[in-house]
């Protein structure tokens, strides 16, 4: 029996409508979520640092999701192991750049941030990067985790001058500088050097070393006339520099000072406590005994990792801080545009409204993101190695703006 033409059309339309309806039903039933993409390093050269930070990020997102999310919206963490390779990270960025709900991309190298900046700007996305001063006083799409390298460096220099005077010494101290032979190693001096010249500190010729140098003696010998030496690079590099300096007897008369990624309690301080005694380390997030004692860090670590707090990886707390900033930005964006109109640009606008807020419960200083500032926080804190610990020797302090001396 033939079905009448009109009835046939109605049947097809009904089928199409049913199909369309069931398709949207899937979308509607799908959980509301937003994405944080980490272009990280879990098995490569800086895995020792990046793994801890991403554990903190992922655990904090779990913590928020377990409480129902942010206004019912779940936070999704996507971590890609790029093995510290920029080409792999760019390829991964290409894969995810148009993923619905992607608002922020975290890059674990300064080079990566620079490489994807133009695309991220076009895509409206925020890219987080460690501490490149070029972005610090700008309205660009690259946001720093905390204070930029050069400002932290001059914060240490200011501490050094105070320490010198406190010891009753006349004039200004002589400073040595040893860091990786790469853009990271030169970054603190892009503005830091100008500041040192301005205040009259004598800087010896900086020594730039390959990351895996087995013995730093030849470099250290050239810095023997320094009163203070600033050591950079990711742990264990700074630990090994100071180990060799200790062997040469240099730690008796020279005060060693390290940058953000310097000796940590679980790596360098654990392996060479004797050599590192008295070393000063700068941080833009809670380190050492501060991190172990922070109630939220302790609570989330023990809840999700089920290990004693003594096993806390070096920069787990920083991961929490980055995640909490994301949560705070998301809350502002949702308030302003709602979930249905939420875009990466709304998040970009929201991050710039976090100025002066304590979004990390003290894991970092107050937030400094603003329309013309890309520092996660201007505040830094100094620590000293005592026994097997890194203990605070200052509260949060705001160092001078050295980046502005270089990037005008």
């Amino acid at each position, binding site marked *: 029996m*033939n079905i009448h033409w009109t009835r046939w059309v109605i049947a097809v339309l009904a089928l199409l409508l049913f199909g369309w309806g069931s398709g949207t039903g899937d979308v509607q039933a799908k959980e509301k979520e937003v994405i944080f993409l980490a272009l990280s390093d879990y*098995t*490569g050269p800086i895995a020792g640092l990046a793994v801890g930070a991403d554990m903190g990020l992922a655990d904090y997102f779990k913590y928020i999701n377990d409480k129902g999310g942010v206004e019912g919206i779940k936070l999704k963490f996507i971590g890609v192991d*790029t*093995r510290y390779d*920029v*080409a792999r990270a*760019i390829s*991964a960025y*290409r894969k995810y750049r148009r993923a619905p709900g992607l608002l922020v991309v975290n890059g674990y190298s300064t080079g990566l941030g620079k490489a994807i900046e133009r695309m991220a700007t076009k895509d409206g996305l925020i890219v987080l990067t460690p501490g490149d001063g070029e972005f610090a006083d700008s309205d660009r799409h690259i946001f720093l985790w905390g204070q930029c390298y050069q400002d932290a460096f001059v914060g240490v220099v200011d501490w050094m001058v105070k320490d010198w005077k406190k010891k009753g010494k006349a004039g200004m101290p002589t400073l040595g500088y040893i860091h990786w032979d790469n853009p990271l190693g030169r970054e603190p001096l892009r503005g830091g050097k100008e500041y040192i010249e301005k205040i009259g500190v004598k800087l010896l010729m900086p020594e730039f070393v390959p990351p895996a140098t087995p013995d730093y003696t030849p470099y250290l010998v050239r810095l023997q006339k320094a009163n203070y030496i600033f050591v950079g690079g990711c742990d264990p590099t700074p630990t090994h520099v100071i180990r060799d300096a200790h062997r040469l007897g240099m730690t008796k008369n020279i005060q060693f000072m390290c940058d953000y990624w310097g000796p940590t309690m679980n790596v360098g301080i654990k392996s060479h406590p004797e050599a590192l005694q008295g070393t000063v380390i700068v941080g833009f997030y809670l380190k050492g005994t501060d991190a172990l004692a922070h109630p939220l860090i302790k609570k989330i670590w023990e809840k999700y990792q089920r290990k004693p707090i003594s096993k806390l990886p070096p920069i787990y707390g920083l991961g929490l801080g980055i995640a909490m900033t994301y949560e705070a930005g998301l809350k502002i964006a949702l308030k302003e545009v709602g979930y249905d109109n939420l875009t990466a640009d709304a998040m970009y606008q929201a991050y710039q409204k976090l100025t002066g807020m304590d979004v990390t419960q003290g894991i970092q200083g107050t937030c400094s993101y603003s329309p013309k500032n890309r520092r996660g926080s201007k505040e830094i804190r100094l620590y000293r190695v005592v026994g097997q610990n890194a203990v605070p020797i200052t509260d949060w302090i705001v160092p001078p703006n050295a980046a502005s001396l270089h990037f005008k």
Partner: protein
Amino acid sequence: MKHYGWNVRAIFLFLGILALGLWGCASIKPVPRAKLQVIPDKTVLSLALIKKPIQFKGSGFVPKEMVVMEMVLPPGVKIKTVNDGENVGLAYTNADEEGNFQAAMAPTATLNWFFQVGWTPLLTPDLKQMKPLSPGVYEIQAVGMDSEAVGRASLTILARPKKK
């Protein structure tokens, strides 16, 4: 009223859907034609590739756009940290004013993706953990990040000659 057979109606419906599809495709921005050359396009995997890496030359991209070179993994080939169906970024650069480019693999890319080395806490490659890619033909694509133009070529990894 004339009644049409079931098959005639089906043909009309199919043609309607096809017309809609073609109309939709016409509104898509054309993707430029791009070319890629891998230099050399055949190689034995040896650590000499760190000093003299695989290079890429291409054309047909949008001026100044970023171009990323990716290896498309054949089914069954696993690379450390790369999920099934994912491509591996090998190199990147920006196209020049004419949309041409040249790029070379960084040492980290050669070590990570061709040799699949491990890394020591001293930040040095751990060659003991090395799992070099198997000999075979691998598709390489250069993708324009703005234009999405794709140039394709292949890289043949040759078996090491047997020691006499």
